[in-house]
């Protein structure tokens, strides 16, 4: 790929990423009054995040076993209302330990 083409392609990528992010924020300044739409928008993050986590989390590491360990530890920590950083570090450490143990077993 030529350098000019590459730069144009990167600009296209940046544009189609920025447009959906910017349009609602630039256009919707007023509060939406419709209770259904407002409730919909308040609930939306949970629906989207849940769909993004499962089942993708199980394929986020080198192997499904370590990913399950990480997910379970994260769920337990989150259930006990630990902060974001704690849960993120806990999940990462759990994967690290699981992969290390799996390596020793093999």
């Amino acid at each position, binding site marked *: *790929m030529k350098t000019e083409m*590459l730069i144009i392609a*990167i600009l*296209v*990528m940046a544009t*189609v*990423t*920025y447009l*959906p*992010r*910017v*349009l*609602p*924020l*630039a256009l919707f*300044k007023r509060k939406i009054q419709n*209770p259904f*739409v407002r*409730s*919909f*928008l308040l*609930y*939306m*993050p*949970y*629906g*989207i*995040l*849940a*769909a*993004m*986590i*499962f*089942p*993708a*989390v199980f394929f*986020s*590491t*080198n192997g499904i076993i370590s*990913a399950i360990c*990480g*997910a379970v530890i*994260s769920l337990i*920590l*989150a*259930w006990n209302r*630990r*902060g*974001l*950083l704690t*849960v*993120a*570090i*806990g*999940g*990462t450490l759990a*994967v*690290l330990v699981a*992969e*290390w143990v799996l390596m020793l077993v093999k």
Partner: protein
Amino acid sequence: MSYNKKLTFSAGLKDGIPIALGYLSVAFAFGMSAVSKGFPLWSPIIISLSNFTGTGQFVGVDLMAAGAGLLEIAFTLLIINLRYLLMSLSLSQRLEPNMSLLKRLAIAFGNTDEIFAVSMQQHDLLNHKYMFGLILSSYLGWVSGTVVGACASNLLPAMICSALGIAVYSMFIAIIVPPARKYWSVLQIVAIAIVLSCVFYWIPPFNKLSSGWAIIICGVISSAYGAYRFPLKSDNLEEGVQNEN
């Protein structure tokens, strides 16, 4: 955890740390894979600086490497990024109403999945200082991860890189579990979204659909159900409890 705290610039910076941590590894992988596909060193760095998105960048580089045309790249990424329409719409209702257009334009650039998720956790209206702090630390993590990944592909041991892959998901789990535990409405929404998402992942013909569309459909169906069954009158979830049976 973060309820009713002061939304200052430094609070934003601090809340961005777990995001930056997760981004480091993902961006590292992105920089590495782009260079290994034969792209010049500077290109993944420019992409991370100008795009600031995960999935879209990976797919965009894959398409370019496969020799796709500009129109194909634009259309595919637009579908992947359509979820941002919903997220920005949701975020627009939570920003301070008198915030200037310029600040909104800047915040829009930083409205990634993770930044959106963390900012929606706050109970107060969001001001630009908090948002800028949150975006800045996340952006630094994203860009520096890309630089390191592009420059030295074997700097980070593979095992640590693999383990960090889960960090972003752990953070999402930390965001949805406490409200799902507390509110029957959120628990139902989360359960519906997970079941739908698994259907779109494994069961044909639904698994033919791109993940961008799948996430949008899961999000729309589950939260429309929630809005229908548990309508809220104010801007917090407490009220939903009264409507539960």
